[in-house]
């Protein structure tokens, strides 16, 4: 009887229960490309990576999370895994696989799950059933004992240069095997008629993970012998790429060495990025994006002068970095201020015997809170001591 009367009391309240009424017209969606993937020829302890396009096909904002399920879920990682997307946009995510050293040979399966949840509408509250969109891409991983040591040369260039300037060979390579590969190159610089070899050069890069790509820059010496540069003329670079002693690719590329001064050297700083403020004791990363606007590859360095109150207090220089024709290269220095206050930074790039125009930035360096407390305590102690001494003197 008591229960019945309670129900009678509660029902009218719940009779007003409403499910959702929400927000009509809003959409949510999710896209994944490729929609399925196979990591074949992997080995125990092996590594592989792929890129996927995650897209929002609808006009409205969504919150996205990407994860894995199945046999292989603990082997897989995605970056980024959680992010917001505006309507009709896409984002590239990187998926990596690390096969445990204890995994047995065989075929493994799993799924890559990309879920889009509609972003809450302004003022939206309860009584809603939100609709999430989920796409499940099949993932297959094949593990075997077959080790493949190889890489592809996807790009190879030898730009023209000038006498007594470096001959720069640039190569874009990708590890197409399933184990780490250490790419090596042998370069012969020959006269165009194929006769004399004027320079020989060997280069070995750092190990490259399977499926990953990198860009390599080889600086072939321009001196045939001491104080004698390879003269202006038409030449051929015979380039052989090697992995574990086996030839991966062999190419002959023609290039020209011009007399000194025939080609233009040019460069500019596109952006100078520095934090607006830091706390004393922290290190400020200062990065400039340098663009080679000339006709020859250059080796560029970033020089930064730090001024405080108009007084030069520090100079910083980055490591040199080769920058190809039309290429953009980040150049970085790290600034550790020695005191608080405002610093003005003047930056320019130095390349060969030239300088770019300057770019400026300011950094405000705050004193740490502990310093301020210590200073406050010091002032208080000094005041108390003074007061004590003054009082004692009066006595």
């Amino acid at each position, binding site marked *: 009887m008591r229960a019945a009367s309670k*129900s009678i009391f*509660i*029902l009218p*309240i*719940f*009779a*007003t*229960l*409403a*499910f*959702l*009424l*929400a*927000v*009509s*017209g*809003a*959409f*949510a*969606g*999710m*896209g*994944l*490309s*490729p*929609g*399925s993937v196979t990591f074949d020829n992997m080995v125990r302890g092996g590594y592989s990576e792929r*890129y*996927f*396009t995650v*897209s*929002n*096909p*609808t006009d*409205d904002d969504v919150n996205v999370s990407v994860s894995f*399920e199945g046999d292989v879920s603990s082997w897989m990682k995605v970056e980024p895994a959680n992010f917001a997307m505006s309507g*009709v946009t*896409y984002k*590239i995510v990187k998926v990596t696989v690390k096969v445990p050293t204890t995994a047995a040979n065989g075929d493994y399966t799993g*799924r890559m*799950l990309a*879920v889009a*949840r*509609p972003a809450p509408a302004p003022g939206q*509250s*309860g*009584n*809603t*059933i*939100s*609709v*999430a*969109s*989920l*796409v*499940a*891409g*099949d993932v297959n991983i094949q593990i075997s004992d077959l080790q493949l040591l190889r890489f592809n040369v996807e790009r190879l260039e030898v730009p023209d240069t000038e006498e007594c300037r470096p001959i720069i060979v640039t190569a874009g390579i990708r590890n197409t095997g399933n184990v780490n590969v250490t790419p090596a190159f042998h370069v012969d610089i020959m006269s165009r008629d194929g006769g004399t070899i004027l320079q020989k050069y060997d280069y070995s890069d750092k190990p490259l993970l399977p499926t990953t790509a990198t860009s390599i820059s080889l600086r072939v010496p321009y001196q045939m012998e001491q104080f004698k540069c390879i003269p202006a003329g038409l030449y051929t670079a015979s380039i052989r790429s090697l992995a574990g002693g086996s030839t991966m690719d062999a190419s002959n590329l023609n290039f020209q060495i011009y007399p000194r001064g025939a080609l233009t050297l040019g460069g500019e700083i596109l952006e100078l990025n520095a934090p607006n403020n830091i706390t004393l004791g922290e290190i400020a990363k200062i990065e400039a994006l340098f663009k080679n606007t000339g006709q020859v590859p250059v080796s560029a360095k970033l020089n930064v002068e730090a001024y405080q109150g108009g007084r030069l207090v520090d100079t910083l220089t980055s490591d040199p970095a080769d920058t190809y024709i039309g290429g953009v290269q980040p150049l970085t220095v790290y600034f550790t201020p020695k005191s608080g206050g405002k610093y003005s930074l003047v930056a320019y790039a130095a390349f060969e015997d030239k300088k770019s125009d300057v770019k400026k930035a300011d950094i405000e360096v705050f004193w740490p809170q502990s310093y301020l407390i210590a200073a406050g305590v010091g002032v208080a102690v000094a005041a108390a001591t003074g007061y004590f001494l003054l009082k004692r003197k009066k006595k």
Partner: protein
Amino acid sequence: MPKNKPKPQSPVTALLILIVLAFSIALFLRGGEVLTAMAIASENSSQVTITINAVAPVCDGTTVYDADEGTTNVMLVGGSTRFVKCNATCNDHNGWGNMKNFTGNFTNFTSRSCSQSGGTIANNVFCYVNATCKNTSIAGNNTAQRVECSWNLLYNARNTSKSGDWNCTLMVGDVDGLNQISSDTIDVADLLAIGSEATIAFGAKAPNANDSTVSVSDNVFNYGNVEMDFKVNASNFAAPCTAITAEYLKVNTTNGATFLTSWPLTTALSGPHTGSKWDINLTSNLTVTADYPQAPNRTTFWGIGIPGGVGGSCTSYVWFAAQIS
């Protein structure tokens, strides 16, 4: 008084005058550097006529790529487009100005015969024709031009699971009526993509009742380029409505269904990738030709039962899940 008759010239004098006159003319012509085919005195010269044959343009280095990301494969974007470019350097040894007509097609291998004038299939699923092509001269080169064609590749451009399944064909013609065709291929990856309305609206409901008389709908769209299996699942309602479990939510995804006709209608919705399963069949939509075609879609119909003893603000999630068939 008889008039004075002119004295007749002696033949020798006349011959001398003729020789002097001819010599003067010869000197005049040489001094004026007038080219002539006429043989004069002891000089031998002749008119040189050369007929230069018309040669067809030749295109090298044809490359097709995803211009949005600079990659040599295409990962499509759900419900949107991807910008694809195809370029080459074309030479006409009659001079770059000889090249006049630049066109490009981008086609799936299954429909290479499509053309602007109406091939077997001319739509944005298999066939992109009549591209916008640009031609630009190259500084210092009097025979070559850079040719670049581009397309906005729609999300439903079909993947055929074949390496290099899309083909870019550049056609360059010259004033002599000679043509050159060059091509390159690229992979277009499969795209699995769905979209739907973001909420399901039942309106006001009384507790302690299974309501099969009012059902609501939500359209689900295939924004990808593959057939997909479509699945539904739901979460239990969040506190304070935890008594409303996923089983209280009912869906009918039968093709052609218009509303819920009995209660309960489907198996319970619980756990990922379970519950109803059906296909949105893309193959029935091949003739779509508009720039942004209506994506294939299916209407889902929903009902809900409300147990007793619940109230307050109730929220839940429903997942529309897609997987390649």
